[in-house]
């Protein structure tokens, strides 16, 4: 299973440690909010709204260099727009994985 990492963020930041820290802080703030919003929409069966959040979350997967998770999210976003939630449980595993990773950095 692929692991989230800081490769992209390090490349983006270069020698700018201050930016790197600030960016990670933004990510740590934004990700849990989007994760919570995603859960709310799934629980309320608001599929289009859930798809909108998956759209944002998939960008986070890219930022954390998770290409497989990104491709999965692209499919899931389409599924949600078609009203299907079959991929929800696997998607949540990725969210938990990222949540755990963000607690370590």
């Amino acid at each position: 299973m692929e692991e989230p990492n800081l490769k992209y963020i390090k490349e983006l930041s270069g020698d700018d440690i201050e930016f790197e820290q600030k960016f990670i802080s933004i990510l740590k703030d934004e990700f849990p909010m989007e994760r919570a919003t995603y859960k709310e929409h799934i629980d309320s069966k608001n599929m289009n709204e859930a798809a909108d959040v998956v759209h944002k979350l998939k960008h986070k997967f890219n930022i954390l260099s998770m290409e497989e998770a990104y491709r999965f999210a692209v499919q899931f976003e389409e599924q949600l727009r078609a009203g299907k939630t079959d991929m929800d449980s696997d998607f949540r595993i990725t969210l938990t994985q990222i949540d755990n990773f963000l607690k370590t950095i």
Partner: protein
Amino acid sequence: MTCIIVDDEATARAIVGKHCSAVADLDVVGEFDNAIDAIKFLNQQDVDVVFLDIHMPGFSGVDFVQTLKNCPKVVLTTSDTEFAIAAYEYEAIVDYMVKPLTADRFQKSIQKVKSALKKQPDSVPSLNTNVGTGAQAEQDLYINIDKRLIKLHFNEILVVKAQGDYIDITTENKEYRVHTTLKKVKDKLPEKIFLQIHRSYIINFSKIIDIEDNSVLIKKMVIPISRSNRPELMRRLNLV
């Protein structure tokens, strides 16, 4: 060059901002997490380029480009490659970057923006009228309701009424209350279709059912005609 960044994700704005900081002659003069605030800003201040997320809730990047009459150059930033072809139908859109943005790709985009700015005459329409959307935009009015820009086609507007600091726009199917003045909305409406017949009323001339004494009937609404506006109304009537 000046630019603004429009994206509902803070991480995405930070990434674009970081890339912008590496361009010596580029100043970020504003960051917005929604399109409506960005449009308000652009109505007050000119910029050279907008880095714009195409996928934002309620108001897409394409809506954004269509809404602005004098749209600056736009670079779309998005995860949705399927929008690319549609995006290039608009003259204002000079590039399309797929997230996550890299430094090399961003630099290429800046070169495209600079080339486009060099080619740009003083006044260029923001939309490519060849695709038909430019003419369409001239027939619409956008109103701001709860941070959403709602498009009203001129033909569906029946009556505009002043209500203190607000106006009430009555359409065929719905009524909208907008925080603006009758004077401001009058300036946005084409004179061929609309006519002010009272201090507090602008009507769609083509929707008149009949005129009786000092009032006009539109649908089921009886609209007063003021003495000062009556001559212009009578002049416009095709009387037998």
